[in-house]
């Protein structure tokens, strides 16, 4: 125990744990490569995730080219199309978004926002990244093995996933499952760190109810991931055994090419239950960090305290808990007992309540705020719009009778891209534009940034809004070429071509963004320590970018929540979390 006195002015108790010594890097290798510093690990995670995300982006171009101009691109055959959707979906959801939000944003922001020097177990944290990298390498290797990557859709449903008619059946699916298992192991090492850091390693004065909502979002998402990934792990292990050893956990008796297979007696529905017990919480694993980031961006850039902070926290926790009891809404057409559909539709619609609370509180935070249309704010607004859009179609699909005809159409693809594709990506971009100055000490280029925003936002709408209509017409998903049908009019094909062109343009804008990231690193405007005038702790570090151990000699003491903006009577238009209360301010502040 170090000897820290009780802070009588603010009633803040002394430190409960003494300072833990940090690992001090001794060479270039341990400083930048095998680094145990959460900030470096965060950057490693982010770069890896964005690189693999580029692969998924290129795959989406190829798919859109095929859908927009069927028959023109002869190098995309039907099997490849299936492989593309599988890899695109899997990479986007798990290897990009999950890794970027938790491994990237989580590692960078948690220690800084809670006032810690690092994660609690830096060595394990480092291992987490390297196992993740290994998972990515195994994933990429599927493109180069005989037969190519798996083609059963990102849901990997058996029996199809491991039968011989499916592309990637010999090597692809095995490596895919192995990669998932590695990812889960790596994630668990990191996730334990994030959770324990938030719970047990906060600085003096930082109660949980003073945490910025970003930390709440990442924390809850991590807890969920620690409880949801086990189901995917088990499903992957069992599917791997079915494929490699010929067990029949998920495989019923089947005739394949006129031959009875060696399988028999297993239950494909069991896989679906395991998969979606993971899969639905996964949606919120990428949504909750986005919720948190958006709350903070809105508050900072509208110079207003967040409306209903406590409601926000409870809503995040409630959404996290509820999302464990809705998984079978993905299985309305799987042949479940109809009463199950009734139960899961009810729980699904109940989730809309805390979610709506969040949307209302964002809007009420904006209400009469001093809104600065900075790039992070633009992305935050775009998030709200796309998220509400996707959430509303989610209400449609949550009802069994509406879902049954719409299931497996482009309507579903439009829905989930809006709600868990575009919306979280908007939060990622907003977050990067917001925190880049802290990470590098320089601002991202404004002109390129605005270009990137408008093209991405409007472009994403151009791709996915018409897609709802195609879905209502009955255009199926996961089809290489729908050919001539009675129910899809010729005009729909023109629409498809339009969407594909939009997709290419949006993709191009992402290259501009990547260029901006690199260019601004050297040429960007100097940012100073706190360019946005933000109150939360990560902006109050003695150095920018924060040095080893984050805080210099003394850990900060926190006296207030993270949202003291435009406090009546205060000297500046914001009060940093670590500024001791004094005089006037002491009476005026607070909601």
């Amino acid at each position, binding site marked *: 125990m170090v000897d820290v006195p009780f802070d009588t002015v603010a009633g803040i*108790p002394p430190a409960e744990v003494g300072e833990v010594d940090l690992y001090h890097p001794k060479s270039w290798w341990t400083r930048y490569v095998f680094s145990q510093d959460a900030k470096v690990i965060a950057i490693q995670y982010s770069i890896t995730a964005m690189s693999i995300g580029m692969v998924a982006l290129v795959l989406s171009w190829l798919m859109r080219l095929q859908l927009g101009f069927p028959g023109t691109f002869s190098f995309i055959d039907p099997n490849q199309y299936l492989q593309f959707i599988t890899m695109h979906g899997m990479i986007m959801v798990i290897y990009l978004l999950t890794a970027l939000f938790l491994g990237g944003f989580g590692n960078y922001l948690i220690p800084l926002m809670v006032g810690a020097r690092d994660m609690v177990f830096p060595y394990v944290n480092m291992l987490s990244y390297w196992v993740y990298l290994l998972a990515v390498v195994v994933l990429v290797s599927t493109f180069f093995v005989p037969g190519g990557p798996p083609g059963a859709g990102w849901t990997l449903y058996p029996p199809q996933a491991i039968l011989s008619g499916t592309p990637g059946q010999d090597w692809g699916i095995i490596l895919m499952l192995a990669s998932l298992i590695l990812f889960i192991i790596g994630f668990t090492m990191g996730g334990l760190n994030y959770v324990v850091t938030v*719970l047990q390693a*906060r600085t003096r004065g930082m109660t949980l109810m003073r945490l910025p909502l970003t930390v709440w979002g990442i924390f809850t998402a991590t807890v969920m991931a*620690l*409880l949801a990934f086990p189901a995917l792990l088990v499903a992957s292990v069992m599917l791997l055994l079915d494929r490699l*050893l010929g067990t029949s956990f998920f495989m019923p008796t089947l005739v394949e090419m006129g031959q009875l297979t060696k399988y028999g007696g297993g239950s494909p529905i069991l896989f679906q239950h395991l998969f979606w017990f993971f899969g639905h919480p996964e949606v919120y694993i990428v949504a909750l960090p986005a919720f948190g980031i958006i709350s903070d961006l809105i508050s900072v850039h509208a110079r207003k305290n967040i409306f209903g902070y406590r409601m926000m926290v409870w809503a995040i926790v409630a959404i996290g808990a509820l999302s464990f009891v809705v998984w079978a809404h993905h299985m309305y057409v799987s042949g479940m007992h109809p009463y199950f559909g009734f139960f899961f539709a009810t729980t699904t619609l109940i989730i809309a309540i805390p979610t709506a609370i969040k949307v209302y509180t964002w809007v009420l935070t904006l209400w009469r705020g001093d809104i600065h249309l900075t790039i992070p704010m633009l992305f935050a607004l775009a998030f709200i719009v796309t998220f509400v859009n996707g959430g509303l179609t989610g209400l449609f699909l949550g009802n069994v009778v509406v879902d049954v005809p719409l299931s497996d159409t482009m309507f579903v693809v439009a829905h989930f891209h809006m709600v868990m594709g575009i919306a979280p990506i908007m939060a990622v971009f907003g977050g990067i534009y917001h925190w880049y100055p802290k990470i590098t000490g320089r601002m991202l280029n404004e002109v390129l940034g605005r270009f990137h925003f408008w093209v991405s936002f409007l472009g994403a709408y151009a791709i996915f809004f018409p897609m709802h209509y195609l879905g209502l017409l009955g255009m199926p998903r996961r089809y290489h070429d729908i050919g001539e049908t009675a129910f899809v009019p010729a005009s729909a094909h023109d629409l498809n071509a339009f969407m594909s062109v939009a997709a290419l343009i949006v993709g191009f804008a992402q290259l501009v963004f990547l260029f901006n990231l690199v260019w601004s690193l050297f040429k960007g405007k100097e940012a100073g320590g706190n360019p946005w005038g933000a109150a939360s702790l990560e902006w109050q570090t003695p150095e920018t970018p924060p040095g080893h151990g984050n805080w210099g000699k003394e850990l900060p003491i926190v006296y207030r*929540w993270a949202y003291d903006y435009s406090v009546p009577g205060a000297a500046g238009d914001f009060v940093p979390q670590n500024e001791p209360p004094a005089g006037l301010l002491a009476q005026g502040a607070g909601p």
Partner: protein
Amino acid sequence: MAETALTNTIEPPARPGGWRGIAADWSSDQRAFKNVSWGKAMMWIFLLSDTFIFSCFLLSYMTARMSTTVPWPNPSEVFALTIGDKRIPLILIAIMTFILISSSGTMAMAVNFGYRRDRVKTAALMLATAAFGATFVGMQAFEWTKLILEGVRPWDNPWGAAQFGASFFMITGFHGTHVTIGVIFLIAIARKVLRGDFDVERRGFFTSRKGHYEIVEITGLYWHFVDLVWVFIFALFYLW
């Protein structure tokens, strides 16, 4: 939560009652769990996650067992040993269970002596625990061999539903791996105890953090958990 907790707190706020009090305690300053070290918190949360893994395995097995149309082999006959000329059902499993539960006892004693800083007794008891664990794994290897010789395969077996062999090898294999990892950890830490690492707070090779006797208790948490899981496997796989 009291409103004051969000803003300036010149006076320490009055303690709220009821639900607000519970929320305030949980969210209180610096640490949510007051006397829990980082390592222990991490182990508890890991075990929670691991519980979900084992639950998924066991639920999947139970689904398979309940939905199969082919009869399930009778565990008390399959897992019987002929000793002398008597066939005793589940005898090996009973002994294995006994051994594993005894190992929890020695582990608990090791934790106790660890906090008394009795190097030799702590290390001895940890090694005894490891020995029990190794015996358990050894007997499991015997059981696997016996079943394999009788023709049980993950994809097939002579007596009924193919999922029997599949679930058996998968679940006991996964649990056995846990035990083996535990044994390795026990030996590694017993060595550190014996060498006096925790008396001089020697730094770890990888982590370069100071070592403490608490690690004995953390290893113990893991060990008791693996034990507890076995009780469920025993009840749900063998006794059902």
